[in-house]
Structures are given as C-alpha cells and as structure tokens.
C-alpha cells in the first residue's frame, strides 16, 4: 500500500468531537428522552394518581397500540421514504383476521370443516386442533399486509413512484377494500379460539400488558437488525445517499421493497392487536392513525430526509404522546387540547434539534 508520508501535515480543522457532540447524546432522541423524564417528574407532582400501577399499565398498553406500527414507519423513514397507509393497513389486517376467524369457526361454511366440528349436543362448536384457527386467521391478516407492502415496495422501488403519492393512494385503496369486504360492517373475532385471541392481544403477562411485551421484543430485534446486520447498514445507506448506495453495490431495490413489506407487516400486527383490545374490527378503525404514528416517529428523532432514526426514538415518541394525553386527562384538561399540544411538540422537537445542530 501507500508509503507513509515523510512529514505528516497537521490540520487545524480536524479535531476530536466532544462526547456530547457525538453519538447518542447528540441525537434528537436523547433530548426528547430527557424531556420525557422531566415530564414524568412533573406528572408525579401534578397528580398522585399518575405513578400508580394501574395508570402506568394503562399508559404502557395505550402507547403499545401505536408503537409497533411506529417501528415499521421509522424503518421506512430512515430510507427517506414515508408510509401513509399504516392506519388503513391496521384496520384491513384486523378485519381480515377477525373475518377469517369467524368464517372458519362457523360449521357449514365452505372450508370450515377442516377447522371445526359440532359437539354431540349439536350446538357447541369445537376446534379440530386448538389454536390452529388462531394461527391461520392471524396469518391471513398478516398475509394481506404482506401483499400491500409488496405493492407499495414495487411501485416505489421498481416503478420509481414517490413514496408519498404511492402510500397516499394505498391509504385510500386499503380503506376502500376494507369497506368492500365488510360491507361497512364491523366484524368480531369469534369461535372456539377467540379466547386465546383476546388473551394474547389484551391480556396481561407477568404484570405487563401483552402488547407491551411484543413491542419490547420487536424493538430489540429492530435495534439488532439496524446495527448488526448488513441489511441495517443498507437501510441507513439508502437513506443517506441512495445513488451512492446503488453505485456501491447495495441491493437498493430489494432493500426498499423489504422495508415497505416490514412496515406493512408491523401495521398489520398492530391492527390485529388493537382489534383484540377493542373486541371488534370496525371498518373505520384506526382512521388517521398514520398521522399519530408518523408524529411519534418524527418526535422520536426519525429524520424525514432519511438516514436518521431508530427503535428507541420510535418508542420514546409514542410514550411522550401517550403521557401527555394521559396527563391532560388526569389534570382534567379539555381533551381537545391534546391534539393541538401534539402539534406543538412535533415542531418543538424538530426545532430543538435544528438549534442544536446549528450550534455545533
């Protein structure tokens, strides 16, 4: 390789960055986390009820209801994309899951004979294999999410359409399809496996809401994937400089399709979980949730220009939104204020980051 220089030149502009100017401490996520901690302290003094087990469980459950979808959207945002179809996707997956579950749990309907039979009394429905109905119906719900994600990814990565327009169209398409298949009526997960379904979606495990556990597992998985796999580096590379990534041999098209598929799957799973808590999947479920999800991602530090973001930020954003909502309820403030406040927080969070990067 090259010979070392005879006399190295020193550059005054090459210096070592201070610890608070680099890594996690320099990220918007850390500032928002700090704000969140402060908020917890304030809430502790403002309301004696805030730090009770019941309320914290409530908070944990509520933010888990958008946080899984936020993980998916954060991934898309890191690639400098956007997915507006997550709200519709949540509804559609939940609806398909509950419709498939109801269908294959009703003896006499085509296909149901593989899953259920009638007991001797002629009324009680018994599952052929306990749990199979649940698995099949959840897979059906995730299956449609997978297909929607593939269509999104194909349009964006292969056809080169803008992510905003593609997923805006998909928002409408998927919502419309939901109304078509349900005729506008909600559906209810029912049948012999419905109890499992409710236990797994709205139950409590080790004192924690089940959705919260799924969230933690998925967030850890996402952190590992982002920072310890080549796929994760490719996601950041595409968000940082897509053209350069293509010239470097990064499989840009494949990674982008995968990212939209993962996002749709996360939204689908989120919808299925929410429907378990609601006890039904109404056709207008999760309407405009995409805005909350994107807001949470952005507050948590995901940069819409791409290249920046992570699961911790996604969760911190969701928690912040929920704690504020919860706090306003406890403080008996008119709940309409919540939405206005969320908007202020989005702008302030991004503003703080801008001021910080100007100062650096």
């Amino acid at each position, binding site marked *: *390789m*090259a*010979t*070392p*220089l005879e*006399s*190295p*030149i020193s*550059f*005054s*502009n*090459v*210096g*070592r*960055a201070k610890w608070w100017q*680099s890594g996690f401490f320099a990220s918007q996520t850390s500032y928002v986390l700090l704000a969140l901690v402060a908020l917890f302290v304030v809430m502790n003094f403002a309301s004696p009820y805030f730090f009770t087990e019941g309320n914290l469980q409530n908070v944990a459950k509520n933010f888990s209801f958008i946080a899984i979808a936020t993980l998916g959207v954060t991934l898309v945002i890191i690639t400098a994309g956007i997915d507006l179809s997550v709200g519709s996707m949540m509804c559609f997956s939940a609806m398909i899951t509950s419709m498939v579950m109801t269908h294959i749990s009703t003896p006499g309907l085509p296909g149901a004979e593989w899953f259920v039979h009638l007991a001797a009394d002629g009324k009680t429905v018994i599952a052929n294999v306990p749990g199979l109905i649940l698995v099949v119906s959840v897979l059906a719900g995730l299956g449609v999410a997978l297909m929607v994600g593939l269509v999104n990814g194909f349009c964006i990565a292969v056809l080169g359409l803008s992510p905003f327009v593609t997923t805006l169209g998909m928002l409408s398409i998927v919502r419309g399809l939901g109304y078509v298949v349900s005729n506008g009526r909600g559906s209810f997960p029912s049948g012999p496996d419905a109890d499992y379904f409710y236990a797994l979606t709205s139950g409590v495990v080790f004192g924690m809401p089940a959705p919260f556990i799924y969230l933690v597992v998925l967030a850890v998985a996402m952190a590992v994937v982002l*920072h*310890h*796999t*080549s*796929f*994760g*580096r*490719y996601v*950041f*590379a595409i968000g*940082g*400089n897509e*053209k*350069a*990534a*293509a*010239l*470097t*041999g*990064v*499989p840009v098209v494949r990674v982008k399709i995968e990212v939209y598929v993962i996002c749709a799957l996360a939204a689908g799973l989120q919808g299925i979980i929410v429907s378990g808590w609601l006890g039904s999947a109404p056709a207008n479920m999760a309407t405009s949730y995409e805005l909350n999800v994107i807001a949470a991602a952005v507050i948590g530090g995901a940069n819409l220009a791409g*290249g*920046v973001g992570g699961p911790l930020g996604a969760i911190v954003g969701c928690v912040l939104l929920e704690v504020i909502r919860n706090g306003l309820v406890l403080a008996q403030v008119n709940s309409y204020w919540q939405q206005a406040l969320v908007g202020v927080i989005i702008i302030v969070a991004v503003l703080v980051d801008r001021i910080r990067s100007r100062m650096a």
Partner: protein
Amino acid sequence: MSDPILEMRGVSKSFFGIRALRSVDLTVHAGEIHALMGENGAGKSTLMKILSGAYRPDPGGEIRIEGRPVRIEGPLGGRAAGISIIYQELSLAPNLSVAENIYLGREMSRSGLLARGAMRLGVGPILARLGADFLPSTPVAQLSMGQRQLVEIARALHARSKILIMDEPTTALSAGESERLFALIRQLRAEGLAIIYISHRMDEICALGDRVTVLRDGRLVGSLDKAEIRADTIVRLMVGRDVSTFYKKDHDPAAGRGHVVLTATGLADGRRVRGCSLTVHAGEVVGLAGLIGAGRTELAHLIIGASPKTAGHIEIEGRPIDIRTPGEALDAGIAYLTEDRRSLGLFLDMSCLDNINLAVLGRDAKLGCILDRDTARDRASKAFTALGIRAANVGVSAGVLSGGNQQKVLLSRLLATTPKVLILDEPTRGVDVGAKSEIYSIIDNLAKSGTAILVISSDLPEIIGICDRVIVMRAGQIAGQMERTAASPLSQEDIMALATGMEHAHA
C-alpha cells in the same frame, strides 16, 4: 499603482475557540486578478464568507473598500458593498429563465406585476458584453455549465459589483469553456474590475494571476508578485514543505505491464457512447482524456453496469462477463470511483467506518447477515494508516472531512473489494495539493502491485504525469490513443488535438 479597492487588515475569525483565520491582511487593486490559494481548510472559504457577509469577523480587524471602512453584514451586505461571489456550486435556479435569475431578489415590477419584458431588455447589453450565445428568455436548465457561469457573472455585473470573487470556476468546465472564461476574466480586468480568483489548478494561476496570496492554517504565508509566480514556489508555500516529486510514477510500464485484465469491445448506450473499445493491462495506468461531454463518465458507467448498454461486451482476464449492476461489477473485480463523491459516492452522515466497509458488508457478514464489527474496524484502521486519512478516529462522519480525506475514504471502500480493475473518475477533483500528491502515490503503488487502472481526468498535466498510456475520447467515440515511450513523452498539445478534432490545437 492606484489606491486599493479592497483592504483587509488583521481580519480574524474563530469558531468555538478554533482560529480559522488569524490576522490576515489582503490588499486587492482594481484591474487586478488576485489569486487566492491554499489547501482545503486553509481559510480561503472563511475569508470569502466574511467578504460576502455570511460570517462576521472577530472584532479588531478592519475592512476598507475604496478607502472607506465598511461593515459587511448579512448575505446582501456583500452585494451592497460591491462584492459578488461566484460559488463552486452555481447558485442559479434552473427552472427560471436567464433574465429572471439575473434579476432574482431585485425584480422589476410595474404596478405590482413583474415587468418581464423590461427585465429581458435590461440584461441584453450585459449578455452581449460577455459574448453570451443564448437569449435572456432561455431557461437556465437548458444551458451548459460554461453558459451558467456566464449568467452568474452577468448577475454580478448587473449588480454593479466592483469586486468579483470566483471560487474554482473551472471545476465543471471543459477545456474550451475554460479558455473562453479566461478571456472573459482578462476582459473584465481590463474594464477595471478586481477579481479574486480561487483555484487549485496551478496552470490557471500561473496563466491568469497578477498577484498570488497563499493561506495556510488560517495564516497568510506569502504574497507573490507577477514575476515571482511559479508553481513550485506556490506549492511550497501551500504545504509548507518541498514537493519535489509531485507526480509520483515509480512503476515501470514496460517491465511491469502484465496480461490484459479489462477488455471492452464496441460499448454503446445508444446516446452518448458509440462503439468504444479499450483494454487495460495489469499494472498499467491508462488515462482516459477528452473534453467534458465527450462521454468518458458515460463509458465508465457502461463498463460497471450503472447504465444499460445497447451493444458491446466486456471481458475480465479473457473471460466474457455479463455486468448489469454496479454490484455485479464489484463481484467481477471492477471498482469505480465516482467523479461526484458528495452526491454519488459518500454517505456524509455515516461514519468513515461504515463508509469504508459498505461494499464488503455482505461478504464479511457471518451467517449471511450478522455484521463482523471487528473485521470492519480493523479494515478501517488499516485504511487510515495506509492511505494517510486524517481524522480523529474511524467513527467520525465522512461529511466533516476535507475533500482529500473524503476521497481517500471513498478509495478505501473500493480497495476493500480488492479490485482487479480500478476506474478512477476525476480522482483529484476538489482535492488540495498535498492530498493530490498522496493520491498519485497511492495510484502508483496500486499499479506496482498489479492493479489495472483507468484514470478519467480533465487535468491534462495530471494525465501526463501519472499515466503510461492515454486514450482520448471525442463525441462518444475513441478518437485515438498514445503511449508514453522514452523517445516520445506524452504531450498536452497532442491530447488536445485528438480531443478537439483539430490538427493543431496549439496553433
């Protein structure tokens, strides 16, 4: 000599305790081309930004224009003081017309509506004076880089600027366009403008400069009169040491040349490249010369599969190979260094570590997808030592490095793939003198170790300095090639003659 039009006395600028500029004195006269030189980070751009009003200097210094002390504040302050800057990246709006761009920020209006006709008429005389061959109503997007530069200059003249600062104006220009620009700059000098000319290209400075001021590490280290301007003197001032062997070429083309590594036959893309064939041998440095727009970069893109080819095929070491994406090219052993490292090469927000390893992540990964952090860190540190990359550590993001160090990081990424063929597109563009010399030495060492190297460059002294053989392109075709032999060294005139299609370019 006349009174100076611009005088700076003891101007300093610090950023958070780092002195970017230390008590610099600069005197510029009307009717003078004053060259400002220095490596990247030497303080040239800080000085320029003070003159344009983007930065406010530290208290203590003084700036006088035509003898009167001035305070230049805000982006419009420079223009108000009679100073216009033509930036390296031109600051025109491509979707607006020439006239609209020239009047941008100072639109003429009649009863609240834009006076388009009057604005078009208003820029006519200036465009004529500059010898422009386009209409005021032409959208800027349709203009070549050289023509856009004229629009920038027209904007400066239209604002009645007396001092014109040009920051590497020829970077994006072809040789012909550069010549026309030089003629224009001399004309403006004759008309009494003061021109501060910033460039890394020594030949331009020697040809144009009336005075040369050299900055190093924020200090003024020397100011040369016309008679004293010589390339070696300037380089010594800039780097603070002797650069005796600027172009390093130790590898022996005759003895060192190995088998044919890259063979491209009849490559075409149906538009810019028509039937190009070339070969590169192991251990050989081949130059690909030609004017801007001759199709050199496009040809490189065809070879690496970055754009689809309509005809032709490629062989590596005699085996035909089908390359459809840059990834396949890397697998086949062809690495390409882009000419536009900021927008097509580097991931500016990502660390040097990630930037260097990105092309080999998949190959290194354990179990097909888990990153091997130790190997990656080891490779990056070795690259830092081997290529002399100056940064605090491998975790620093690539965006904060100087041009030369960025280029070395990008080069490290390519070398990590251990390529058989290395295609370097303008490897020293926007790189300071010291780093240039180091990059030449890296290229030389790679050739010595048997890599086949194709260098695309618009810098003819560079091509002549480092290449064993030169292939010249003209209008999408190979116009000819010439070999360096002991009897006949390569000459700029011969290359230009081939590139322009004239018998005697220097006639």
